[in-house]
């Protein structure tokens, strides 16, 4: 089976809010897919469908060969889920909570005990095995949530904002664990609003906005399509209004370049594969502007998409 997930025209509504408006995509074996988009894009709704927590209101969703509408229980046995909001059992210690969850999955006592110990080691919580989730802090809770999603040995892992709100070091630790799972061949589907996380953990990215699939591809391809190649950021040093610089730039930037105002600065995006001429940078510098040059990233692409959406 090449396609682990086949989604066609998925729609989901909560009351009068349309969370998903006809999303279609595939997830292939061994692939890491990242759903990227701002808050309210529909990522969490889609993740809940993929985890077997909700049946789709309409459309077709096949996960691991099963219809998500009729095989919710069987799917939850095979899909590990790390929801955005902790759903840990606050009344059981880390180890006991993992064991209980293993029992919910129908694992035997010996197997559950062994798996729980291994997973606590994997997420670096073995020395906190007796601690209640409330005693673990935000980082520990997310680690425990990941361990819980793996207790049954899932065939697919769905993660919804697994590192949101964590310190960079804590994020890096969880990313390293997800990289280790990747090395073991576990396919993952990550929903995130963090562009760095999406680039790091997604082989292929789906850009969602307002419940629609806006674009998909590798991070590099999406950046090239929506943000360009190079970005120069120009910020007036002495509070001079940026409009002067805009006038300075007009006619000097390469064709197809995009200019955007953001937080008092002016950003120019060159078309993919093109660089700004050094003379332009020099002229801006001489005119009294702080000039920063960098490669365009996924955050720029997402911002460009949102801007385009707002204008249309």
């Amino acid at each position: 089976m090449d396609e682990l997930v086949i989604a066609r025209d998925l729609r989901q509504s909560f009351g009068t809010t349309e969370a998903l408006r006809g999303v279609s995509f595939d997830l292939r074996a061994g692939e890491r897919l990242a759903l990227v988009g701002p808050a309210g894009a529909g990522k969490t709704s889609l993740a809940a469908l993929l985890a077997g927590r909700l049946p789709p209101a309409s459309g077709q969703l096949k996960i691991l060969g099963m219809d998500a509408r009729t095989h919710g229980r069987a799917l939850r046995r095979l899909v590990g889920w790390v929801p955005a909001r902790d759903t840990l059992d606050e009344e059981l210690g880390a180890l006991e909570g993992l064991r209980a969850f293993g029992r919910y999955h129908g694992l035997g006592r010996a197997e559950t005990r062994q798996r729980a110990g291994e997973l606590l080691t994997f997420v670096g919580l073995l020395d906190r095995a007796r601690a209640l989730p409330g005693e673990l802090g935000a980082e520990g809770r997310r680690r425990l949530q990941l361990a819980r999603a793996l207790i049954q040995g899932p065939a697919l892992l769905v993660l919804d904002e697994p590192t949101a709100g964590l310190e960079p070091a804590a994020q890096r630790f969880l990313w390293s664990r997800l990289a280790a799972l990747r090395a073991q061949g576990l396919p993952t589907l990550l929903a995130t609003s963090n562009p760095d996380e999406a680039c790091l953990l997604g082989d292929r990215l789906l850009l969602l906005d307002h419940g629609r699939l806006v674009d998909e591809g590798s991070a590099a391809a999406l950046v090239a399509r929506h943000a360009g190649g190079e970005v120069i950021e120009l910020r007036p040093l002495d509070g001079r209004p940026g409009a002067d610089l805009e006038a300075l730039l007009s006619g000097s930037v390469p064709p197809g370049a995009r200019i955007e105002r953001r937080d008092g600065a002016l950003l120019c995006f060159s078309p993919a594969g093109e660089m700004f001429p050094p003379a332009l940078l020099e002229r801006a510098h001489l005119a009294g502007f702080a000039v920063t040059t960098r490669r365009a990233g996924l955050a720029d692409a997402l911002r460009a998409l949102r801007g385009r959406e707002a204008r249309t």
Partner: protein
Amino acid sequence: MSLLGALAILGRHLRVHRGRLGAALAADLATPAACLLGLALLVQAGAPAPRLAAGLLVAAAGLVGALEGSLGAHRRLRASAFSEGVLASPLGLPELVAAELAFAALRAGLAAGLLAAALAGLGWLEGLALLRALAFALLGGLAMGAWALLTTAWARGPEDLRAFLAGVALPCLALSGAWFSPDSLPALGQALLWLNPLFHASAGAGAIGAPGASGWPPLHLAALLVLGALPVWLGARALRRVLALSN
């Protein structure tokens, strides 16, 4: 529904309560123990001990069932992420509800069992009469747990649970028919008694002295089953909606 799954959730509840067993038993038995003292005074004054003892057993089980099905179940199903966590596993609402009812019945059974041992020790309730009273007390506790679970499903907050305990559970205990003769009630009151699960539990347990035509235990057993099953069905429907459940 997966029986093993429901047992796994029940095992979890027991594990959580393992460390609090003493406190839980003390809380469950405090009121019946106080009633036991009152009962001793009544028996000394010539009141029929077996009847009142059976009524006390039913009341104790009903009270524990109502408390666990409301405050306990609400904490697990509505006020914490516990139910969300379970629903991320292959288990679903049927297992959650079954485990809640089983846990309420276990606690009610434990409280009633300890009280029954005390009553047997005092010689007020013995043999088959004791077993029958215990069985109906357990069913009464289960039915009250079911009503409480329905309240849990409907509750918008803890104040609704308090309203249930003060406005439904305690009147059910007081008006079970064990502490007065149901025949002394007006016709409307007698009709309303039939909606009270603890009336049927008391009647089945032999706690009602002059039951008239309503004294046939199988009839009360059937009424108890209906009054227990209906709120479970309604509560499961409400919980499915509240928890936005999948298949």
